[in-house]
């Protein structure tokens, strides 16, 4: 692993995303919506930070996943990934460069959520840690989709479905018990539960199990795509 190359990719990505509105909007949309909703809507008996948690969960399930997938798929489609790999950049260096960039940007978004939600001290740290875990899993899934897709078109169609599962299931689950039984098995639902109970966090064995399962599946998809991406 050559950190100079990782840094080069990171800086390339920073410049490129600033000019790429479709990806940029992914990072900004949810924190902005959450800020507006949380500050403008008051309902009786509304749980604490209702909108912050709702949109933070959707953010986890959507933004890192779609942006990673679309960046990777575009690099494959436009042949820039091949040029990088042929310039002696290892696939791991590339992914670390792009991945750490997305992670950082999404963590900045998470800080906005935390500030709007007025988390302080240990709660602030806990909130960001939960977000970090979710963003990590989400990036892995996105990287898997991106490396497995031939081009942006096919990546987008897969992303939409996967993203709907991870970002909307937890929301629908609030109103529908049947959906809640399924959404339990998504990492975003588990993290959503943690966010809701942030003052009184308790760690259950099945929560850890589900998170691990999500992570392993994401890793498997990713390794599969990674292998193929070297040959493609």
């Amino acid at each position, binding site marked *: 692993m050559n950190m100079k190359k990782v840094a080069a990719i990171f800086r*390339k990505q920073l410049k490129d995303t600033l000019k790429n509105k479709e990806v940029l909007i992914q990072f900004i949309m949810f924190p902005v919506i959450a800020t507006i909703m949380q500050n403008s809507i008051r309902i009786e008996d509304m749980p604490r930070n209702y909108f912050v948690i709702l949109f933070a969960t959707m953010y986890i399930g959507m933004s890192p996943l779609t942006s990673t997938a679309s960046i990777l798929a575009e690099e494959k489609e436009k*042949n820039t990934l091949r040029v990088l790999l*042929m*310039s002696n950049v290892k696939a791991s260096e590339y992914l670390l460069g792009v991945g750490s960039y997305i992670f950082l940007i999404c963590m900045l978004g998470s800080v906005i959520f935390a500030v709007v939600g007025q988390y302080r001290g240990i709660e602030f740290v806990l909130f960001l840690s939960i977000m970090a875990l979710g963003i990590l899993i989400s990036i892995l899934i996105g990287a898997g989709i991106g490396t497995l897709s031939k081009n942006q078109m096919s990546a987008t169609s897969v992303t939409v479905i996967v993203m709907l599962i991870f970002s909307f299931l937890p929301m629908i689950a609030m109103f529908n018990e049947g959906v809640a039984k399924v959404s339990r098995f998504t990492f975003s639902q588990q993290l959503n539960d943690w966010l809701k109970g942030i003052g009184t966090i308790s760690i259950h064995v099945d929560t850890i199990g589900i998170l691990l399962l999500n992570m392993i599946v994401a890793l498997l998809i990713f390794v599969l795509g990674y292998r193929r991406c070297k040959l493609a």
Partner: protein
Amino acid sequence: MNHNLQIHTKDITMHFQNTKVLDNINLSIAKGEIFGLLGPSGAGKTTLIKILTGQLKPTSGVVSLFGKEKERIEQECMSQIGMVLDNTGLYERLTCYDNLLLFARIYGIDKSEINIVLQKVGLDDAAKKCVNKLSKGMKQRLVFARALMHKPKILFLDEPTSGLDPVIASSLHSLVMEEKNKGTTVFLTTHNMEEATKLCDNVALLNKGEIIELGNPYELCRRYNHQNKLIILTKSGEQIELMNQASSAMRVADFLSNNEIESIHSTEPNLETVFMELTGRGLDTDEHEKSSRYF
């Protein structure tokens, strides 16, 4: 093995599914040589370049670059190779400068090299332009700049000038010659026989995955100069063909003394006619033409 041998292949054969695309390719290319792979569309040129650059694994056969077998030295090897392939692989939203900056950082090259190489390809004024605002010729020159920036020892060029206007093509030719003079080995593919004749020290004629002839372009032309005729156009508009030999001397002398000659030239076969003679078809034909007619 000869230390001057930069590219060497032994019995390269490539199958895609059940079709044989390359058949027993044996090549030896020396340091500082410009080698041209000439063949019609679908002959297997790109496939061979992909095998040489490690993007495809041949069904059988061995590739050596710099006198070492390919697979073992992949890492260090790559930084000594420059490539201009048919799909550009440029970052469309980034400027020319930023595209090169990424690779300068990857190769650990000083940033000052970027402006030098941009100037070399005539893009210094466009340094701040985004790639998606460049013309096709400019993009190709930027790809050249990227391929040259790290001073590679071997350059692989896949149809470097196809679809470019003659002025730009010719400026790219000068760049290639300049590299050769610095000792860089160049492997290029083309279906433009003029380009091949002008640039290459040696060419291989590739037809349906087989090398059917190989050698210096001028020597090849001379070797296939069976016609060897003189063509005389008279002032009255008549075209007369004479054998290019002593027995024609009297008639030529007659034309000359009667001041009848408008123009006179000898038939000089070019690589196109050599290819024609060997295969019965031209270089602009397409392997896929026969099948595509059915669609």
